[in-house]
């Protein structure tokens, strides 16, 4: 991984704040991810990690500024992030049980052309041509996560680990420049966690990753830089080794040393 300073910034968060009534879940957080950099985001329960992801992807009311490729991104609108190449996965994999695995991936296709009713009725030939290209792309994405055999199985029948992989296949289909992942390894067995790390290592070569995760061995393998949050505030950042040595981080997790 190259030193972040020489690489152009991909995501820049300035003083992002999220408040629910009297509780400040995210309190003026600043965070940067450079092009093709993999950053870890850690912190004890309730430290605001997921809420920060929700703020960046426009799912909760947030204040502050967020820039993608130096362009300002309006907050509070869910569609803005993906339009700028920022895709996100969720703590609980968001899979549509009424669609098959292939369809769950196809919906994320960046090719918006010939998908509406008018194409379905008036220009079917062009529609098929475009859609076949999407099928190939989706098929490769499914193969990369090892779900090619389940292409036509309705997503309702998937086990938990498979749902997690299907969401990642959808992320690959969206060809994002930055991928926000909310506890991707949660609930996976150690075998699957290793396999997921291998996959994300490949993805990380040409896509920026911001990983919220608790499995530190998993993070250490992927991230050069880790940011630590506690009660909505950023309390530490640096290489994994520096972060674990920092007493403030230990205190954040274990409470003040007695």
């Amino acid at each position, binding site marked *: 991984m190259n030193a972040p300073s020489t690489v152009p910034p991909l995501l820049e968060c300035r003083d992002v704040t999220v408040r629910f*009534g*009297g*509780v400040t879940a995210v309190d003026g957080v600043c965070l940067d991810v450079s092009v093709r950099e993999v950053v870890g985001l850690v912190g004890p329960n*309730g430290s605001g990690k997921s809420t920060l992801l929700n703020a960046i992807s426009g799912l909760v009311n947030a204040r502050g500024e967020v820039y993608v490729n130096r362009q300002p991104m309006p907050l509070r609108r869910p569609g803005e992030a993906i339009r700028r190449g920022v895709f996100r996965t969720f703590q*609980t994999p968001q899979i549509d049980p009424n669609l098959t695995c292939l369809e769950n991936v196809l919906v994320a296709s960046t090719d918006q052309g010939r998908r509406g009713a008018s194409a379905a009725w008036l220009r079917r030939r062009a529609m098929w041509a475009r859609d076949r290209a999407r099928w190939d792309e989706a098929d490769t994405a499914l193969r990369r996560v090892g779900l090619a055999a389940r292409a036509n199985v309705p997503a309702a029948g998937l086990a938990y680990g498979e749902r997690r992989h299907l969401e990642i296949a959808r992320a690959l289909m969206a060809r994002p420049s930055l991928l926000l992942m909310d506890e991707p390894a949660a609930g996976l*067995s150690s*075998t699957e966690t290793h396999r997921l790390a291998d996959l994300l290592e490949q993805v990380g070569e040409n896509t920026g990753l911001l990983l919220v995760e*608790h499995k530190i061995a998993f993070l250490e393998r992927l991230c050069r830089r880790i940011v630590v949050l506690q009660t909505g505030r950023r309390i530490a950042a640096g290489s994994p080794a520096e972060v674990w040595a920092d007493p403030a981080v230990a205190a954040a997790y274990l*409470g003040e040393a007695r």
Partner: protein
Amino acid sequence: MRVRATDRTPAAAESQAPAASPAPLLAVRGLSVSYGQVEAVHGIDLEVGAGEAVSMLGANGAGKSSTLRALSRLIRSGGQIVFDGVDRRRASADGLARAGLVHVPEGRRLFASLTTEENLLVGRSARAGRPPLFDLDDIYDLFPPLAGLRRRSAWALSGGEQQMAAIGRALLAAPRLLLLDEPSLGLAPVMVDAVYTVLARIRSQVSIFVVEQNASLALDLCDRAYVLATGRIVMSGPASDFADRAELLASYLARDEPSGDEVEGDAVPDVDPDQRRAAAATG
């Protein structure tokens, strides 16, 4: 005697029963929770004696909250739950609360549209005839900041104030056993200290089972502790055994992956057997 995680013995460490005390207030045998969500609990055993304070420590996703939600019957679970000598697997959540097993949920969850005092008064619904342990004034003594916030709507309270009100609400139910789910969650350190000071004061009147990430305060408060990792108890014993913070932090951050659930997947990516059972269980 403390059983270490790295032993090759089967994952569920047998818990050493404390000195021969009367029948435990709460005895859990083979508790297992399986659903499509992140935390699964794989057959844990634990006990809380009358008048005892016990803590369960563990990293995120270790299954702490699922354990408490299973104990308070919010979610279905396998295994045996004996409280006050009666098997409670058939009990409803509100029935168990009225029996005295009062659960202070993760994230406090006050009733947003009710005022602070109204939230406290609702706690009395679970008292169900038991003599009161604390009355309203006792709560305001224990938590002075709340006295000035009686009329304020709960959604407008800060995280710390909400936590105090949530504990006060549970105390008004005269609990026989107080279950606390991560009281330090999202609280500034000064607020966490205030909450634990109060818990120390009421220790003599209420048995406590606190699920926590903040190990040092929990260990100061409790006689015994369990450590949970990926749904299994990996360490248990008197609080004094957990002085070694580095090792505890290591188990928190899942540095040394417990080998218990190693699954040799074949070429086609197979799914962890627990997950498949989990998915099957949920239908």
